[in-house]
């Protein structure tokens, strides 16, 4: 999906509540999904989604269209909030995400007929590097363009294309090991 109209953003920057609601309506599901696949549980993803939009409101005046992608900017916020979340987890010595995911999904992996679903995907994505995981989520779940993904991750478009291919290859291998079908 293409980025939102720059006029909407300008009006939102002027405090137009309807336009701000439009921004929220347009992006909150994508942001929630990104965070869901990053953190692994719905409740945390919901909380972090709220934080993303609070921060969006706070810094909306600093976003400068045209040229920059609003969606990319919003995903940058989401990514930063997600990283903060992990830092906080680490400082509070909480149970690492990997263990949570493992516990949650082992039973799913052990089912007789293994077809790619949210649980498999969530666990498989967790095996990838941060950048690879972000590229998969942004490109195929949030449906962002190469250009927007590059802006969000502060990389060139060529490097995103490379990351995209390597991420898919890694994911394919993981799913193959688990005998999870996606055809």
């Amino acid at each position, binding site marked *: 999906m293409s980025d939102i109209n720059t006029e909407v953003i300008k009006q939102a920057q*002027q*405090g*137009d*509540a*309807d336009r*701000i*609601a*439009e921004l*929220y*309506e347009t992006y*909150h*599901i994508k942001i*929630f*999904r990104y965070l*869901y696949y990053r953190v692994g549980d*719905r409740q945390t*993803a*919901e*909380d*972090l*989604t*709220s*934080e993303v*939009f*609070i921060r969006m*409101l*706070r810094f*909306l005046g600093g976003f400068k269209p045209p040229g920059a992608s609003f969606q990319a900017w919003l995903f940058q916020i989401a990514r930063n909030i997600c990283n903060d979340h992990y830092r*906080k987890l680490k400082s509070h010595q909480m149970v690492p995400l990997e263990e949570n995911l493992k516990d949650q999904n082992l039973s799913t992996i052990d089912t007789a007929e293994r077809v*790619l*679903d*949210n649980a498999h*995907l969530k666990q498989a994505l967790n095996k990838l590097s941060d950048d690879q995981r972000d590229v*998969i989520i942004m*490109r*195929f*779940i949030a*449906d962002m363009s*190469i250009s927007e993904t590059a802006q969000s991750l502060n990389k060139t478009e*060529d490097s995103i*294309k*490379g990351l*995209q*291919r390597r991420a*898919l*290859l890694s*994911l*394919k291998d993981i*799913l193959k090991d688990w005998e999870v079908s*996606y*055809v």
Partner: protein
Amino acid sequence: MFNNDEQLQQKLEALKQGESLESLLSDLDGSDEELEGLIRLASAIRSMPHPEPEAELRLEQAAMLTPELVRRTDLIANRNGGSQRANRETGFLGVIKSNLQQRTTRWAVPVVAGALILVFVFLTSFGAGLWYAGPRQAQYATLQGVVGVVEAASDPDASEWKTLTNGDRVQSGARLRTQDGASAYLVFFDGSRAELMENAQVDITRLQGGYGKLLQVVLNQTQGKTVHEIIPFENPKAMYVVYTPGGAASVHGTKFSVEVSQDGRSRFTVNHGKVLVSNDLSDVYLLSGQVTSTQTGQELEGPDYQFTLQGEVELIEVNVWKVVEVWFEVNENTLLIGDPSVGDRVVVEGRILSDDNWVADTIRIVEDEEQIGSFNGVLDRTEGAEWVIGGWTVLVDDETALDENLVLQSIVRVDFKVSEDGNWRAVKIALLSSPPEDSDDHLPAPDPGANPSLSFEPDELSAQTCAVAGPAMYEFGGFLINKSEDPKDYAAGVELSYQLISGAEYVDSVELVPSSWERIDAGESGNFSIRININDAWRDSRNGSEIKVRVFVSNEINRPDHHPGRVTATLSNYCAVVPGDRPEPPTTPEPVVTPDPDQEFEAACVGADPHPTGMTLASKYEVDYDEIMGWFCQRFGFGEIDLAYSLSREFGVPVEDLFAMKNSGMGWGEIRSVLQKGYPGEDENTQPISTPEPTEERGDSTCVGAQPHPTGMTLANRYNVDYSEIMSWFCQGFGFGEIDLAYSLSRDTGIPVSNIFGMKSAGMGWGNIKKDLQPKQPGPPDDKGKPPKDK
């Protein structure tokens, strides 16, 4: 490698543009198995269903975003002269809600059948408890904007403090404190929020909510400053009360702040809306821009308009200081923060007294170099460049930012700078509150010659109660008398308001019936009731706990400032179980006992604990818990009671009639069938659900209608008494279910039915009446190990 990356991207782009997967893969012709696998995988990820946040969450998030949105639009409006405020809340939340409704409508038709089944299963298994508890997020507040060290203890007596971060949630019973330089927002589920400034300490004595935007917050602030921004309440049971050592503030949608100094002095200021501040000695209604302060045990001061000065301390002459060329008084109540002296940069917050004296409440040292003053007041006159606000003249020029909707008698805030010639030049004049609109046509016009004298009789009402189980309602009656003798001294447009002086954490709602009179003539009076609905927390309150409700005249058209009278209703808990007094649990293991259905019934019918399903049904059909339990105690199952009320609502037939039909031997299916064919007793006067008002007589049409009431006839026959006797109780406000129960108890115990109704009128619940009337049997304490309550 680059070619592979590019080739994959081109295929993925083609897929995204709508080319079919089969078509794409056929182009490859099996030549590149790896590429084919990657495209299939990407396609699979793209097309699989991904999780979505729940609709409820969207509203919750929208509510959480609203305060930030308000702050942002305020900033922008301030910058632009204030034009974007109108729809910031309603617009944002409204769009989200509207979109949700549209989405729901699109899906409604195909899923309605399944949804009904799910709703039924949900309600029967979980719904009851959830409905009573309210939405999950209503039971906590979320920390946002945490700066510095913000800590919480799980209860006011706890010694261990936990550091809080953004997103942490706090519940009723928590104690919060902020350290030097720290601050945080408590965001409630409806979007209301409280900001804790540095060195504040607040106990959350109550935090709960329910469906229908019902938020109930009671805070006890012992130190520091808090700023509260409350979304206007839509639910009459909603409450927001802040207690301090000096008094309490309660609001229904406003922005205000509360500051408690170390010596216990409390200061309340209102930025927008109205706030009622009370203590044991006085009440003050604060309007936008006004302030009051008090010390423990003293009357509230004011209300006065507030001022703020920021700049260098230019002079100090004994108790008179000068900042930004403005003189003000510093007295023994002024709080000096940071030991300010001449030459220091400070912010002064204070009050403009009615004698035009400016008195400082707090003076704190700051690093900001800006020199500016501001004060609030009523816009009295605009004469060319000279505007008179609250009696003070300021100069307005082309550079002054003026709000669009300023009219005479508006309450405004003026930001000003002092020019070289000593004049105050307005930098900005902002609207805080518009003048009240003209009175409605039906209300009499104010009569400057009238001098009504309204007072309450009695002015003290009190009752002692054991902490009963479940929700209960206590009712006090009183009179509002116009003691004037001259006929021209009539009181017009009289309105009552109340303030919870103490014990708000135990109160679900307070009703004043009636709460207004169009006119009370000289020598005349109006009677009214104060109904206090209490909640479960009362049961566990300490012995001696009190609920105090202050009722006063909040509005009257003729000389409204001359009605100092008020009445205080006090409810004291004199027999509560004191925590810690409970007996030790038995050391030997209890044998596992299968509950006896009869014992379970008795426990629910006359036991101390409220039955959750009874509570749920009472809430669902908006009737008294006792009414529901009255049917239950007549051996109707909760499922039957639910069905009866549901049928009553659907077909407009009194619920008593339905139970009477059931008692006559009809099955529920048969009853429904009769209703569908057209119930013969249905008429214009039929009330769908009986909700008796204990002190108000029913209207003639329901009470002594020409046709005999079928349920009244049934009861008269059942207990072999005159129909008129049954209907006389009904006409006094008792429901047929209650009448049935009273006669049944009278028959079983030999106690005259009038005595039983007397117990009910005195405030006892039917469960307790039944328990009291049953023969006492010697035996061990009840199975909860509670000691017997004092009498």
